């Protein structure tokens, strides 16, 4: 659980690993995830609280709860054929979770609560690997807490939304540069750590139901900047010299953005057994221009790490089939466009465009309880990429190589209705 709580902020450099581009981790509902994480037009459980709050009012039960957890097993391999170097990330499974609840106040209004971890990352390279001047390891998580209200304005139209409270943590370590060591030969490094960084944002959504079988949804989450102020930066293994920073701690300020996200899409119930969903999502990553870490110690220069992310789109397709009274099968696919631009491929977020293949099922254990399971396989093409913004002596020193990644996200959850 601690992992979840760690979350964070940002830092340092970066970025992170992402399962949906950048450091977005799309695993906020097993039912949706099994359908390509599409759900802006789907109303079938409290997961709707995250995917489209305006749909909550269409849930028929008085109280609906969905909760779940996902294991993120990611692997990244890197090599540089011009030097013969190679490395891979260590296994350090991330565990995004969610808890969504909806309470039907009356026929035209529902209240909801959504707690989830849509942003986070955990990447650990081998210590002092060839890219250690950019990142040794990073752990980042943000918890979104959203009180929600959903109002039915007419038979065909509802609106919903509410504030978003975010708390985040970050821990990031990298080496000071490519060569500096202390007297014993240990590489000089810096750890940036902050926790309990908070900020607020908002979400707004609507759902249009022109005919009973078709729901069209729109959901928008605002941008939230997590400002780590007064975090702790620890300088370790620097030599005893007045020509280098001193060992010890100093405060730092940095800002990590959680970008605004817009989703539109629909769900079409073809018949009693089949439902199809499509979401188009746009994440406004261009807010993530540069990660600047400003150290309180006046002798330590601000660390400027250009990121230059671009806005990125995701296309999600999902299908659901009622196999029997108590078994529902789901499958989906999504294409996830990376916000990382050429020349800015930093190894804390070693993510290029990805194809996600999903599957899952729900098993109705009793009238009120269902078990939801999902599985996501993320496939990345092998990519030759570089990060060109690291400099020494005023000269760009690109960090180049070939990356090959994949990720497996098995998830389990429950849906409870009262």
């Amino acid at each position, binding site marked *: 659980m601690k992992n979840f709580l760690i979350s964070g902020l940002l830092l340092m450099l970066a970025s992170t690993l992402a399962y949906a581009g950048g450091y977005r981790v799309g695993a906020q509902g097993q039912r949706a995830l099994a359908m390509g994480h599409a759900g802006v037009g789907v109303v079938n459980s409290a997961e709707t609280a995250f995917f489209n709050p305006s749909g909550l009012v269409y849930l028929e039960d008085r109280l609906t709860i969905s909760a779940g957890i996902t294991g993120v097993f990611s692997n990244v*391999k890197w090599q540089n*054929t011009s*030097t*013969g170097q190679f490395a891979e990330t260590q296994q350090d499974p991330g565990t995004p979770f969610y808890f969504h609840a909806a309470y039907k106040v009356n026929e035209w209004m529902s209240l909801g609560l959504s707690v989830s971890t849509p942003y986070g990352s955990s990447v650990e390279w081998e210590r002092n690997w060839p890219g250690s001047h950019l990142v040794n390891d990073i752990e980042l998580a943000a918890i979104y807490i959203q009180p929600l209200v959903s109002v039915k304005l007419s038979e065909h139209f509802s609106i919903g939304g509410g504030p978003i409270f975010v708390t985040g943590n970050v821990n990031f370590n990298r080496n000071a540069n490519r060569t500096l060591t202390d007297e014993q*030969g240990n590489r000089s490094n810096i750890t940036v750590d902050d926790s309990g960084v908070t900020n607020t944002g908002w979400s707004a959504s609507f759902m249009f139901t022109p005919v009973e079988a078709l729901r069209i949804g729109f959901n928008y989450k605002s941008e939230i900047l997590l400002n780590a102020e007064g975090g702790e930066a620890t300088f370790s293994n620097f*030599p005893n010299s*007045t020509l280098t920073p001193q060992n010890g701690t100093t405060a730092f300020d940095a800002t990590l953005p959680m970008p605004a996200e817009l989703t539109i899409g629909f769900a079409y119930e073809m018949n009693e057994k089949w439902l199809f969903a499509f979401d188009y999502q746009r994440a406004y990553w261009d807010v993530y221009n540069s990660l600047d870490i400003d150290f309180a110690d006046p002798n330590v220069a601000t660390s400027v790490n250009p990121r230059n992310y671009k806005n990125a789109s995701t296309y999600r397709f999902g299908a659901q089939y009622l196999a029997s009274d108590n078994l529902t099968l789901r499958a989906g696919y999504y294409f996830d466009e990376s916000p990382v631009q050429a020349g800015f491929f930093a190894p804390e977020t070693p993510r290029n465009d990805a194809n996600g293949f999903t599957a899952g099922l729900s098993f109705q254990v009793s009238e009120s309880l269902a078990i939801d399971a999902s599985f996501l396989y993320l496939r990345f093409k092998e990519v030759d990429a570089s990060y060109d913004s690291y400099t*020494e002596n005023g000269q*760009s020193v690109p960090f180049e190589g070939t990356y*090959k990644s994949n990720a497996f996200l098995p998830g389990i959850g429950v849906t409870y209705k009262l």
Partner: protein
Amino acid sequence: MKNYIKFLPFLAFGLMACEPELDQAIEENEVYTAGEADFSNYVALGNSLTAGYADRALYIQGQENSYPNILSGQFALVGGGEFTQPLMADNLGGLTLNGNQIAENRLVLSSNAGEPVIPPLPITGEPQTEITTKLSGSFNNMGVPGAKSYHLLAPGYGSLAGVATGQANPYFARFSSSENATVIEDALAQSPSFFSLWIGNNDILGYATSGGTGVDQTGNFDASTYASNDITDPNVFAGVYSQLIEGLTASASGGVVYNIPNITDIPFFTTVPNNALVLDAQTAVNLTGFFQAVAGIFTQGLIQQGIPPAQAQALAAQYAITFSEGPNRFIIDVPVTPSNPLGFRQMQPEELLLLTIDQGALAQGYGSVALSPEVMQVLGLLQQGGTPTQEQAALVLDAVNGIDDKDALDASELQAISTARTSYNATIQGLAQANGLAFVDANGLLQDVGQGVSFPGGTITSSFVTGGGFSLDGVHLTPRGYALVANETLRAINLTYGSDLPEVQLGTYGTIYLSDNVN
């Protein structure tokens, strides 16, 4: 459902095993080829440069960045095996013999309030490398700091008993297989499949770094009579070198040899300029006047000894050295000869001062004249046309404070070094060609460093402290300098053996080390 849930941890475990596969993975040996060479058992022979010596000491970090160790990392991509080195006990680098320190700790660049302190100083600490603590096993890196060519064939060079008497080498004594072992025997016992040999530097370097106080042994074929500061006879070198190559090529599939760089590309000899006698106008006039006085006094002395005045004036004229405002070349002592009876002269443009010269003394008149008030008084007397007494004349001649032989390399010493080196290099290149070995022009490489070698993130030059190529002793290389040697070696090997070994990134190798842990 519970039954299924309990299998989930196993599923998760299985997923961790599903690693992505690169199309052509370096890790799986799918990228590079070894060509005709067999790198499975690489053995490196040589001296301090091969051992990874730097900053006037051998220490772990330097050894890890030795060029043979860098090479072995690349060889490992095409079937190279483990590469063992006789690692020191610490990163201090000092040596003890029966608890008594016999080699100083490494040099570091200290600082004061954000400004570097020159010269570099030894790092503090109790060195833990006791040479009587013998290392067991054989070592792929057979580089022995201090070794000259003929030492590799010398029985007893690794004798512990011989270290105390100065007959043996403390570094080799740590890991020699027996008291009588030779370096080449211990190397051949490992049946190297590939070798490197960089030897001969010390055959001139001991002479050079002593300021030429040793003997040029050219013509003396008995190496057992050589002292450490002597120049090895080129025929002795050639004989030794061909024996080494013969032994090594018997078992190895291939090898690489290195020639000997010119000392004028090494900061130990290029950092202190020979014209650092910087004078203001008045001092230049005074010094010029002083040496006119010297010439005058000497002329008078010769005439009094019965030398014809014209001849006396001609002989003494060489001492009427003139100085100008700005930089002037120093005065050095040279052997007294009939043509230079006073035994000093101004340095010639190509002559060199050593890094170890006392720069404080230079500022106090070492290399020129100690212009004491008494001397000035005599000069004043002379200017007024007076005749100095014998004591006064002697006072003036004694005031000349030329640079000692040990602090400089004069033209004849440089010539001796150059002649020997040229001959060694002809031997090395000839044997490389005759045996089809890869050849590294280390001489050309260090010349390039003198001009500056650029890489992403900087430039390597041979400037002392700041250049990045040479360590703080001014002779040995930095990790980055050794990486440069490794890359040149990889190019030579690829060319000779048809391999396609990749080069390393120079910028990922460090240069000099900073620490204020100095006394």
